[in-house]
């Protein structure tokens, strides 16, 4: 297992390099550059001042030199300083936001997994029942609903009309004055809408997958054997069926991480949650290249890590898959 893990991690490095190289190029090829955005709105920024800024940021150097410099710093985990007027170290700007985004994504994964699996099982065991049909409808709606629309609709209903839930931010303005349980509820209530919206699509997708997978497994010979030897139905389903059916689900859950991280960009913007996704949007608009590239590095690393974990867990849940000797599957 361990050599396999190391091998997988090593393979990820050239992949990561490729991602970084492409991202860097795309960023540099986009028209407009940081000094432009920073100063063009102002009347008195002269050409000389602009040149000062360009030199300060090293933007006067050729592309490969810029990339080389940047990469050599990234390897040492030095992401530099933000171009935005606060000029803070990039690592500091991201560090204060990472817990929020990771926490949110973890919560989403948890909710997706813990809801999608039972829903899928229920649908599969009651195939073509009213419940299954309702679930099918839910799935189609889930696939078809644009996140932003759902978000606004829920905000309008629960935030404006009913006034039950807060619509944006992580904390109320009087957070500091609340007792402990008040604070806990405050935080939770702020998370309900964003987590719901963020999980919706994934939930629909994964529950469908679970249903399909289980339906397939149920038709296998060993299930027939289990039934034949007189095991009660729930033991057949849960002990023999689900354990096998869940394998592809686990894999895909790992693969959903990049999608969720991408979704954070939107969720954190609409719900005003100060996480990495929000920072990404801001940095993109202000062409804050050091921050953008650092976020790309982190996002890509997390996604690759998600894939590796999925592969590894595949081996863990499925005893048939042996990873010894470096041969997976």
């Amino acid at each position, binding site marked *: 297992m361990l050599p396999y893990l190391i091998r997988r991690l090593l393979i990820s490095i050239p992949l990561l390099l490729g991602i970084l190289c492409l991202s860097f190029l795309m960023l540099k090829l*986009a*028209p*407009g*550059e940081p000094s*432009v*955005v*920073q*100063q*063009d*709105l*102002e*009347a*008195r*920024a*002269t*050409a*000389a*001042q*602009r040149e*000062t*800024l360009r030199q*300060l940021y090293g933007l006067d150097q050729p592309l490969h030199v810029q990339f080389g410099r940047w990469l050599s710093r990234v390897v040492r985990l030095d992401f530099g*300083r933000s171009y*935005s*007027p*606060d*000029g*803070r170290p990039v690592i500091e*700007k991201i560090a*204060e*936001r990472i817990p929020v985004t990771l926490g949110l994504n973890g919560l989403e994964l948890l909710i997706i997994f813990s809801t999608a699996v039972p829903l899928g099982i229920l649908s599969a065991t009651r195939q073509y029942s009213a419940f299954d049909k309702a679930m099918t409808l839910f799935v189609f709606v889930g696939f078809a609903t644009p996140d932003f629309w759902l978000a*606004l609709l829920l*905000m*309008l209903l629960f*935030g*404006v009309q009913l*006034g039950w839930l*807060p*619509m*944006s*931010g*992580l*904390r109320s*303005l*009087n957070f500091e*004055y609340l007792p402990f349980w008040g604070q806990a509820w405050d935080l939770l209530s702020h998370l309900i809408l964003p987590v719901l919206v963020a999980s919706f699509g994934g939930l629909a997708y994964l529950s469908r997958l679970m249903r399909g997978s289980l339906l397939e497994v149920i038709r296998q010979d060993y299930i027939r054997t289990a039934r034949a030897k007189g095991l009660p139905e729930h033991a057949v389903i849960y002990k023999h069926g689900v354990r096998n059916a869940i394998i592809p689900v686990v894999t895909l859950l790992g693969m959903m991480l990049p999608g969720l991280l991408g979704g954070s960009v939107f969720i954190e*913007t*609409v*719900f*005003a949650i*100060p*996480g990495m996704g*929000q*920072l990404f*949007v*801001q940095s993109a*608009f202000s*062409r804050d290249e050091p921050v953008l590239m650092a976020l790309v590095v982190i996002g890509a690393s997390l996604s690759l890590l998600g894939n590796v974990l999925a592969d590894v867990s595949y081996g863990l849940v499925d005893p048939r898959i042996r990873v010894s000797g470096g041969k997976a599957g």
Partner: protein
Amino acid sequence: MTGSSPCFHTSWSGRPGWAALIVLAWTLLASCSRPDATTDSTVAEGGPAYGDTLVQASIGDISGLIPNITSDSSSHDIGGLIYSALVRTDKELRVEGELAERWEISPDELTITFHLRRGVKWHDGEEVTAEDVDFTYRYMVDPKTPTAYGEPFRQVQKVEVVDRYTYRVTYEKPYAPALLSWGIWILPRHILEAAWKGGVDLRTTRQNRHPIGSGPYRFVEWKTGEKVVLERNPDYFEGRPYLKRVVYRIIPDQSTIFLELKATNIDMAVLTPIQFRRQTDYPAFRKSFNRYQYLSNGYAYLGFNLLDPRFQDKRVRQAMAHAIDKREIIEGVLLGLGRPAVGPYKPGTWWYRDDVKTFPFDPERARALLAEAGWKDKNANGILLRDGKPFTFTIRTNQGNLVRQQTAEIIQRRLRAVGIDARIHVVEWAAFLNTFIRKKDFEAIILGWGLGLDPDQYDIWHSSKTGPDELNHISYKNPKVDELLEAGRRTFSEEKRRAIYGALQDLLAEEQPIVFLYVPDALPVVSSRVRGIEPAPAGISYNFIKWYVPAPLQRYTR
């Protein structure tokens, strides 16, 4: 240049954002109305009371709390409450002293001597003195300072700290915008000078995250991406502000801001025309908020690249002005919330002239003018031809500004009616500036100008300002205009300047270097529990420290 400026934004500080002040300056409003103020409240309220919190939303996180080196409006709004300046503008937009008690202008108009108020304290208890002013000046002219506002200070020839409370600046030539340029936020020397002298970038200092100012509000906290909290400065030299706290919540999405406003979780915002007309005109909203409406300090225009020979002919530009129905744009796009622009100044200012030549909607006249200019024949599609080439061009505007995009569409249709084929290209802001504006690679643009507090528009119209990074990007060159612009800067006399800028407006109206389109209304809303708001030519926020919430209506008690 107003870019993709967030719609939900109010400028509070009595003084306008420095960006506006620099570009050109802020201006007067002509009409000012409170369409549905709820003054007939039945609650027993009592008079002004101290306390409560005003919550506002900002679409972007602020970039720093030394506003002299930031350029976003949120940083400027917040900075305006934390810091103070030598001068500012009053409700009538006349210059008045803030930190400066009074000032003298020498008879040759070259020297201004500021006399500072005594006993004004920084938030940490140190006194504000002429040394602080001097430090701010030296910081602004330092070439290493990453500021976009240093230029007016480079016109200064000599500065002198006469004594602890007197500061004297001397200019090489009389420079009329000089006085207003001292509306720059004064920075605390005792906190920043050592770092600055040591070559430290001030953006990395504590001051940029935890500022010490001398304004009506003190800094409390800035939670990145979440909120900025200010608390009143009880020792403010003009008296303790009534509102105890001001909170800026950072909400990066406009729809979310609007929903939070509807749920009354936000106390102040600026509406778009459609929100004003259609989405907030219901009883519950009118009860919770007072809506205000007055002319904003800017205008939108259709500009031409005057390096293009087709647009160099004045008659062609005049024809476009006749072909476009400004009323239609105002009705259709602004939903009636604005008025036609006839020149580069805001109606109601002392330098504004409303009797200049106008170009009423008249397609016949437009066709005649185009024919005079040689655009006579038409091709099979009905497009005018000259020397066999059809009159086709592209109008570019920036993404994210729906009003401008819709304006472009209306203009496109009207131009088509007189035989001009205009295409529309909407471009992302950074790309728009870098690819098209800087390289002068455009034919026509729809953009806006934010106006300043002074009629000086040298940077926009003067022929020396046509460089790639300068503001005369349409490359307008007119010796008579140059002459007037130079003369206007060289005297402080209001009477002389009125005549000079009057002549300028005549010339620009005749020449139509750009088609002046409209002046939109500013549409702020403030929670109806807030009292003491008195709309004036300067808008509503000039007397912010006098705003209050009567004791029974206070919502945030802690």
